[in-house]
């Protein structure tokens, strides 16, 4: 795996894309930022933005309360999006990351559970942030950025596995699986991109970042045109990663529901807005996906997922065994 991504250039280099400077932004924001350490995050910090990009700023203060709710300002037509976090939060978030990893052909990947998606997004932004103040330290140390990078590789790999499992399920069910395989192919690219050291990988920038990372063109084209299990196997061969059938790496779990017995049959209420006829009870048991398909019909499992009566998640231990 490459070294941790180099720190980007100065704050004003990053802000030049949207024709502003750190000083202008300080003037705009005024006393709102007093007492806080400002860091530019997002596409501009990752040197991907355009002249129409938002300016995303995270501010770290001694206030222990935090919220992901943004405070929005406008500089002409450009949005300046502020979020406030406790000063200790980045270190605390990194301490919770897995400390075991493996080296795969395309790079290092963490073992064990990954943080929730919102936490992953914060970590990817913090790992690629640029301080406003001259001489201010990077938000994360090189070791922390590597830990974040390995975690995000794992998260991208898990997403790839989930979509590949859906592709297998839809194939068994005789449903249109092309979009699931398309997404699995993109997941493979995202995994490789993150493993190359490009931590910030917002979905719309995927191909721009993949080119910047210098990934093999035949791999990228293969992943881009992935529409079937055969295509996906070609992608994983090029990535030198063979995990076996994805439906052995994910599990289905029943969602919460309430049962109503009305004359004519049993009905299940999911949340407050969806009522459907009750399937056989064995179809609502937690199981590896391939077993759920064996015990019920693939089409029923797909319908239960579509009705939100079942959900899928990666089996962390199974995936660890597959890659270790």
């Amino acid at each position: 795996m490459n070294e941790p991504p180099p720190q980007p250039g100065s704050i004003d280099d990053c802000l030049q894309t949207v024709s502003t400077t750190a000083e202008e932004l300080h003037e705009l924001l005024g006393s709102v930022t007093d007492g806080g350490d400002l860091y530019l995050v997002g596409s501009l910090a990752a040197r991907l933005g355009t002249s129409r990009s938002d300016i995303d700023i995270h501010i770290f203060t001694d206030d222990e309360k935090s919220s992901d709710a943004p405070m929005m300002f406008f500089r002409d037509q450009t949005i300046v999006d502020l979020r406030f976090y406790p000063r200790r939060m980045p270190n605390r978030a990194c301490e919770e990351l897995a400390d075991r990893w493996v080296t795969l052909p395309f790079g290092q990947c963490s073992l064990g559970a990954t943080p929730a998606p919102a936490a992953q997004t914060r970590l990817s932004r913090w790992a690629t942030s640029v301080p406003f103040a001259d001489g201010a330290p990077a938000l994360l140390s090189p070791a922390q950025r590597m830990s974040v990078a390995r975690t995000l590789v794992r998260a991208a790999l898990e997403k790839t596995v989930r979509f590949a499992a859906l592709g297998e399920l839809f194939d068994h069910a005789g449903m249109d699986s092309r979009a699931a395989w398309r997404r699995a192919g993109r997941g493979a690219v995202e995994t490789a991109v993150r493993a190359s050291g490009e931590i910030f990988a917002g979905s719309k920038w995927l191909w721009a970042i993949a080119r910047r990372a210098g990934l093999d063109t035949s791999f990228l084209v293969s992943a881009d045109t992935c529409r079937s299990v055969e295509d996906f196997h070609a992608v994983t061969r090029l990535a030198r990663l063979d995990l076996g059938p994805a439906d052995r790496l994910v599990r289905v779990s029943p969602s919460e529901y309430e049962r109503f017995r009305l004359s004519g049959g049993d009905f299940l209420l999911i949340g407050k807005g969806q009522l459907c006829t009750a399937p056989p009870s064995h179809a609502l048991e937690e199981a590896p996906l391939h077993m759920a398909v064996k015990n019920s019909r693939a089409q029923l499992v797909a319908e239960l997922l579509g009705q939100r009566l079942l959900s899928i998640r990666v089996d962390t231990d199974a995936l660890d065994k597959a890659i270790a």
Partner: protein
Amino acid sequence: MKSYDPGWMAEQAARVAWTCTITLDGYIEDIDAAMAAEDYATAVECAGTSLFLIGYCSLLLNGHQNPDGEEEMLTALTVHEPRWLDDLCALPAAMTADAVDAERARQAVNKAYRGLRGRVPFTVPMVRTPQGFFPSLRVASEVEKLRSALGLEPFKWDFD
């Protein structure tokens, strides 16, 4: 005059109106920005995301519950409205896209978007602009007023 199911208006239609202004419109603008920058791969990728979101909006307008996350959205589309997947998979490859490919992708999105907009009974001003921000807050408060009148819980503003 048209009549609407009030619960549908307060939940599904409201969610679609807000998805358009918070997320979908931004991706459609990104197609234009990428085309202007001759970044045709990004233009096609944004077109793919736009079509996916339009499919998601169609699911909601047809009465389905709000899927949670990308995997649920794709599964719901596959099971309930697979026609959107045809449009998505018919897009040109992003990596090798040229100007003609990207324009074809843009036109596909524009057509789908016009169809979607015709089904949404109200719109929310562009929230992420100086001109639209405060008017959008007024629309939000009207949605909450309708929900309160129907005895519904406050709207879940989870659009990340």
